[in-house]
């Protein structure tokens, strides 16, 4: 499946849910927020939220800032 993740297009994504995608990317789900096609996916929905071909996914976390 093709997904755009953080602005980067990836053609070979095996994950079909947000939880699987975070696992595939080796990202701990606790400290991030995920948006799919501009809609926030709640942490409790990571396992059930299905990803579709062409989805735009944003994964964000906290960095140093003032």
């Amino acid at each position, binding site marked *: 499946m093709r997904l755009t993740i953080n602005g980067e297009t990836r053609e070979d994504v095996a994950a079909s849910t947000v939880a699987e995608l975070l696992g595939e990317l080796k990202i701990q789900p606790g400290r991030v927020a995920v948006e799919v096609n501009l809609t926030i996916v709640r942490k409790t929905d990571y396992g059930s939220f299905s990803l579709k071909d062409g989805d735009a996914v944003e994964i964000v976390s906290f960095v140093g*800032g*003032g």
Partner: protein
Amino acid sequence: MKDRLAIRGIEFGSRLWVGTGKYKDFEETKKAIEASGTDVVTVAVRRTNITDRKSENLLDYIDPKKYKILPNTAGCYTVTDAVRYSRLAREAGVSDMIKIEVIGDEKTLFPDVIGLLEATETLAKEGFIVFPYTNDDPIMARRLVDAGAAAVMPLAAPIGSGLGIRNPYNLKIILETIPVPIIVDAGVGTASDVAIAMELGCDAVLLNTAIAGAKDPVMMAGAMKHAVLAGRLAFKAGRIPKKLYATASSPIEGML
């Protein structure tokens, strides 16, 4: 006597709030934050590095159990972006607190107060505890409170400029007229600037560059800690009025 700052039921252990940007590395960030004595740190929301998973996370150094994490919307120039970043921050974090920035101009980083007001209203309605970064304008401060701001954060001077308190008289008017806590945010350069803000009666000071950009950030963090305490005590003690002429401290009586 307890002199704790509380906002919307959240009690803060320090009146010095510290940003986590511009440090050499996370180790220095951690040491400076510890030396400042703060329990509130600001953070930004950015894309997670999805290619290099070995890169460290800020929260490995700043324990969210020990510090209150106040995310910001730095870098947002529109209401849409500020609201989007705020919602993401709430989902990534553990609280409803958000420091709203809607920036109006790249060179000054002054806030776009019209956008700021709109974003504040939207987010307050969604249950956020909104801390708007604004100009030192008493009228806008009042409008932000009407829109639901939990506190108002007027700038001392442009972000990162180190110019200090450019308009103490406006801050005084804000302090007299605004019923929510006032936290000076941005532009302070050194300890005396922080002390002045606190002596005016501000409830807290938020700074980043003044510590992170100092030659010795950890030492400067300590200086800021003392400046906040000194300024707060001086405010509460009540300073003497300024007079043009001298008043002798030693008695005339008993002189030869």
